[in-house]
């Protein structure tokens, strides 16, 4: 029951979804949509587990007065605020003009956008460290990055505008993107395709079952 039934479910469901690709006849044709909807429903249930875990850990911290317990109060308060207003607003919670939208736009969004924007700094420090001509591979990496970086901005144009058309920085960057870059990209993609085909097969056949745990 603990091990066999899940493996059976996995095999049946997986095999069905492969077959469905070749069978346009209903109800098979709708199976994929249906299963993906079911997945969303399962995820909507599952999030309770995560939320409870987060709240439990935060409350624990507060009651045991572990270091940083004050910030755990902030976590709980932020969560409660959004959930309370979100439930109160109803299914139109996301529309412009609602209270929820105000919270989203003034609290959630700046946090999210800034965390995202931090990447601009990290990409600078990462390229400073990583792009050094240590060996052949690193040099190739460095040169490709260098040309594309320059080719995508006007400086590259100004630096090489004396060259005939087709040989300027922008053209070089484009040539790199369209040929060798794409070739490498394809190799990676085809490799991934094979890796996924094989892993899927192992899962459907029950050879790969780590994700289910043991007895």
């Amino acid at each position, binding site marked *: 029951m603990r091990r066999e039934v899940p493996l059976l479910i996995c095999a049946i469901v997986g095999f069905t979804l492969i077959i469905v690709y070749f069978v346009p006849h209903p109800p098979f044709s709708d199976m994929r949509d249906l299963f993906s909807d079911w997945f969303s429903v399962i995820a909507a249930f599952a999030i309770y587990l995560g939320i409870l875990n987060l709240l439990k850990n935060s409350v624990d911290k507060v009651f045991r007065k572990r270091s940083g317990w004050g910030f755990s109060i902030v976590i709980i308060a932020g969560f409660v605020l959004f959930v309370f207003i979100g439930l109160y607003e109803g299914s139109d919670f996301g529309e412009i003009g609602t209270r929820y939208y105000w919270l989203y736009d003034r609290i959630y969004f700046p946090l999210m*956008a800034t965390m*995202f924007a931090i990447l601009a700094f990290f990409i600078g420090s990462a390229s400073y460290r990583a*792009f050094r001509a240590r060996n052949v591979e690193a040099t190739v990496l460095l040169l490709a990055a260098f040309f594309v*970086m320059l080719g995508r901005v006007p400086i590259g144009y100004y630096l090489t505008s004396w060259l005939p058309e087709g040989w300027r920085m922008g053209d070089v960057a484009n040539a790199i993107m369209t040929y060798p*870059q794409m070739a490498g*990209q394809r190799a990676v993609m085809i490799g991934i395709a094979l890796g996924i085909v094989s892993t899927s097969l192992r899962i459907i056949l029950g050879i790969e079952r780590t994700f289910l745990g043991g007895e």
Partner: protein
Amino acid sequence: MGFFERLLKIDRRIIFTFIAVAIALPLFFNVSMYVETTSEVVGIFSAVDSLSPGSKVLISFDYDPGSMPELQPMAESFLRHCFSRDLKVILMGLWPQGPLQANWALDVILNDPDIKVKNLKYGVDYVNLGYTAGNEVVIQRMGSDIHAAFPVDYYGTSLDEIPLMRGVRNFNNIDFVYNLSAGYPGTMEWVQFAADRFHARLGAGNTAVQAPLMYPYLGKKQLVGILGGMKGAAEYEVLAQRPARAVRYMFGQGISHAVVIFFVIIGNLAFFATRKKKES
């Protein structure tokens, strides 16, 4: 520790400061720079330019405010182009935030003096279908029936009551699909479903991160062209002869690139200097 050794282990906060200044300072100056155009952007521009007036264009907004700096200028210049060519525009989103982004872009463009005189009407010249959950499955459903995928528009009106949507049942009735994407679901899904399965003509605007991944799909059958990041947006503005935000931002963009490149060069110089010292 010598100068070069110290340079190699430079505190990253120094790099951070340079980048911050490089980005912030140009905002205070209004400089527009020359922008070269590339064939991927021209591909989309000319595809739209060659559509006959009245043709229907579907724009899917598959991003959220996080990617606004890059994608919103693309949305705006594309919308302006469509309206100035008298194309009918159908907007939608595979991301919950998409339709809002669409409305923001509409708001800007419809108030543009050149477009305002056309007195465009909702439901006749453009329509916002809103968001439907289901990611790529939505595209698949649209392939068989758009009215089933989106029974009502953003404002809850039945699609059957919207004049623009009456003859539009699936991708056969749409002359061009344009997808603005910041991840999943996005261009990859539009290629796999709309282009591969239903043979829609597809163009895309992507964040610069995502754009290289889409290069393998370029070609008549999958993607007619792609706008990559702010440079792509600026190119489109230049092609449409309406330089706007993206072109203005390109200055800061350029300076910050220069800073990164400068540090890469410094890093390499220091690296070789220290290596020589070690060898000798």
